[in-house]
């Protein structure tokens, strides 16, 4: 903190620079990067697991009548294989991308998600499960440590969206769209950041954990009302997939904003903890 203030202090003859502040604790940074690794492993191994039964049904047991998503392959009239995706009964041809795609070993085959996005690349359900069930623990422990640390240090409150933030969401969005010169006054996180982080921490992350646990017959035997609440086991598999898509979506928005709001400063702050405050950045709630 002291060094940061010294560096941030104006020097004779030099233009005044905004101060460097210590923004992210070592726990926040360590859990952020461990979570990043776990996220990649879980998505890729999850798609490997999905490939073993490339359908999602809004039902308890498997039920083709309630199929929401199916990724498969068909023979074209000419005899060539065609990748096909069906969403709510609407059919799309997706050859080389989904359904008929990379086998992870240099060729192509009937396979829902391609080899370059699954872990491992080749078809191996046992391998995918091994990665998934290990890194699920890493993700949960990371999340628990982050939230526990935040509660202990009383700074988790900075990231939680409050009712008083709601009127600021639209002005903040207008600022991002350059339709407003100044963002609404805010603390360490702006209202849109709070909305995004709050939904990830308290909605999508718990949803992906609970829907994943509901897929376990051992957990289901202990707590089948949870599975029932999700609409049944196959429905839980669907929720698990939907929560994954939501988190991947968050990841895309996150990367876009990291890159567009001072990429060097942002990455430095998540590596070293030091962040140079911008003209609109706050530090409190």
């Amino acid at each position, binding site marked *: 903190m002291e060094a940061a203030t010294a560096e941030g202090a104006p020097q004779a003859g030099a233009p005044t620079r905004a101060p460097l502040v210590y923004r992210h604790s070592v726990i926040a940074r360590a859990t952020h990067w461990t979570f990043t690794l776990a996220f990649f492993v879980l998505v*890729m191994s999850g798609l490997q*697991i*999905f490939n*073993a*039964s490339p*359908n999602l049904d809004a039902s*308890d*047991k*498997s039920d083709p009548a309630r199929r929401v998503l199916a990724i498969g392959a068909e023979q074209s009239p000419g005899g060539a294989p065609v990748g096909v995706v069906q969403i709510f009964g609407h059919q799309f041809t997706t050859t080389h991308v989904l359904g008929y795609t*990379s086998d*992870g*070993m*240099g060729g192509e085959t009937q396979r829902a998600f391609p*080899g*370059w*996005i*699954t*872990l*491992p*690349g*080749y078809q*191996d*359900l*046992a*391998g995918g*499960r*091994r*990665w998934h*069930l*290990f890194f*699920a*623990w890493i993700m949960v422990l990371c999340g628990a440590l982050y939230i526990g640390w935040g509660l202990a240090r009383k700074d988790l409150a900075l990231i939680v969206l409050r009712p008083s933030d709601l009127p600021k969401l639209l002005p903040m969005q207008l600022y991002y769209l350059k339709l407003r010169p100044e963002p609404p006054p805010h603390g360490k996180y702006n209202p849109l950041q709070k909305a995004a982080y709050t939904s990830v921490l308290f909605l999508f992350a718990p949803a992906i954990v609970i829907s994943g646990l509901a*897929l*376990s*017959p*051992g*957990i*289901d*035997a*202990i*707590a*089948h009302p949870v*599975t*029932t609440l999700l609409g049944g*086991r*196959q429905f839980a*598999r669907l929720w698990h997939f939907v929560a994954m898509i939501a988190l991947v979506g968050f990841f895309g928005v996150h990367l876009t904003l990291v890159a567009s709001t001072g990429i060097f400063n942002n990455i430095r702050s998540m590596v070293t903890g030091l962040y140079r405050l911008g003209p609109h950045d706050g530090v409190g709630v």
Partner: protein
Amino acid sequence: MKRRELLTGAAAFAAASALAGCAKVTNALNDNAAIKNVLHAAEPLNHVVIGTRGNAKLYPDSAIDRDFRVNGFDTPSDSTYDGLRRDGFASYKLVVDGAVARPQTFTLPHLRALGTLAQTTRHDCVEGWSAIGKWNGVRLSVILALAGPTNAARYVIFHCFDRSSDGDPYYESLDLHEAAHPQTLLALDLNDRPLDADHGAPVRLRVPTQLGYKSAKWVQRIEVASTFKNVGDGKGGYWEDQGYDWYAGI
């Protein structure tokens, strides 16, 4: 303009190479024995944390899949099984031996005479699909009580008639706690009819608290043992030998 085209081309090439390289990297990581060992650490953790605690949900008969999905190995077609099948399994004998005080053999009528229990439960396949069937059979705990496991007994190993395409016999194992679970059945009927050959006739295991690969079909012999290390590749089951977890509750 030229420079932009060059950069675009280079970026496209890099992306294509990265995609192709991605599978190479993930395949190598997956094949690494040291990493595999680390990842396997989650299995005992899941076994301790989740274990076999509650009871699988029971369904009404209206939920039954009348055309219950057939999966797994092909129905056995060797002369022993075919011979049994031809005479309606009249000469079938289930052997219970190993670390037991009183080794047993049971004919099908003998098994039925022990008293059967019908339960409609969901079968969750490791692949991700599920189906609901009404299973009627004898509690495994009843069979084990008759045989009397010795103090050395830790596991119950199920030796089956079916073989993989490489000729490896199918086998599975449970620990004594899982074997004694009141819903762990030796099923004789599916959906009110004697098991047909494709669904594991004449006797299959049903473990509704774990994934489907535990529910071995075509059970021939039940061996009670202190370890499963000397059966197959020593991992406790055919699919376990192929890399699947022994604890199949998740």
